[in-house]
């Protein structure tokens, strides 16, 4: 077993992990942060998206041991206590989810986009989220929710 010290959503954690254990499994099974989902396990679907040092990655393709000394952020860290993030509110308003499996990964990826680019075009949103697959919504509502949240966040600042 490998000892891993890492920060998740701002909290320091010490974990003992199998060398083959993915960051996704460590988050879900050891820290009980079950927001990130396993859709494919091979980097194709994005349901497992978390931020590693501020960048979206597929946590199914990161070893838990690689998180040593790095900063991880998950969907659980997006809301401010009971107060939903504008993206989360807009996803509900636009009904941008059905089963919800893809939603945590898309929220994490979309938030990272808006932090870099507060005013993305529809095309930019679609390309940025090309690695987040959704079997239910047909994507349109997701894209509209992200663009609407971006607009609201621009007005608020």
């Amino acid at each position: 077993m490998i000892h891993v010290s890492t920060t998740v959503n701002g909290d320091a954690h010490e974990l003992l992990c199998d060398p083959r254990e993915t960051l996704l499994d460590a988050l879900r099974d050891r820290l009980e942060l079950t927001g990130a989902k396993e859709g494919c396990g091979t980097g194709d679907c994005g349901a497992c998206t978390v931020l590693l040092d501020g960048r979206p990655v597929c946590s199914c393709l990161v070893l838990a041991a690689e998180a040593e000394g790095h900063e991880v952020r998950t969907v659980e860290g997006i809301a401010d206590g009971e107060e939903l993030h504008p993206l989360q509110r807009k996803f509900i308003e636009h009904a941008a989810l059905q089963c919800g499996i893809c939603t945590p990964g898309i929220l994490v990826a979309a938030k990272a986009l808006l932090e870099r680019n507060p005013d993305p075009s529809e095309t930019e949103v679609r390309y940025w989220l090309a690695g987040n697959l959704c079997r239910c919504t047909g994507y349109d509502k997701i894209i509209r929710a992200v663009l609407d949240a971006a607009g609201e966040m621009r007005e608020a600042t």
Partner: protein
Amino acid sequence: MRYHTPSSFEDASAIAAAATGVTRFLAGGTDVLVQLRSDLVTPDDLIDIKRIAGVRDITRRDDGGWRIGAAASGVELAEHEALIAEWPGVVEALELIGSTQIQARCTLVGNLCNGSPAADSVPAMIAAGATVNVVSPEGAREIAVEDVPTGPGMTSLGPGEVVSAVNLPPRGEGGGDAYLRFIPRTEMDIAVVGAGVNLVREGETITAARVALGAVAPTVLLVEEARAALVGSTLDDSALAALAKAAEAACRPISDKRGTVEFRTHVAGVLTRRAAKIAYGRAGA
């Protein structure tokens, strides 16, 4: 599986040289960990190079070229404006790989050493005339990128050999490069054909060129006849026709669900022509 985190390439090489079972290096893990997860390859020793100091650095070399650390990711190249200004083709080729999430992890060196004939950044690196620094227990050497792949999934690197960096030559005046690939969709797919072109012009005339093709043979090809078609020309219609013919003639593709031999061969000609036009335009800008 033993997970190693050496703090130098010499240590990484020593661990690999001493290993007796299946050994892999871990750069971005977007090939290694897919293979691990799908039970295709479970390494006995996995050697993570990312804790080596400077391994993600992109630095200007004394000769005016660039040194790109083995673990620099797609997004780190894509955010490097000076590098993009000089080698847009290399950067756009790496940027084509996967999604936003994959971009945060994938590397030039992993793309090369995984040995896929369809690896997107490899034709661009070969066209650019890139080399890699290799560290082994016997010492360090520098080899051309085209000398690394030897067949699907295979490289010329021996046990204990690890790549520490990719070197791009000085861009100089009047140079431009470009990479194009064909995929059936607009994102997230494997190249059916890839074409990298790098050239130098003096006025309207091309004075030097390198052309490389991916996914049309067991390894990425450096196409000498395509160079000959370009050099001395002004990229007029007859030069473009000769270029396409040379590219087609070099193809030794397979037929699979992504494309037939005929289709791949035809597309190789089309993409090489288009990439040459882009490179020519960039060289004149």
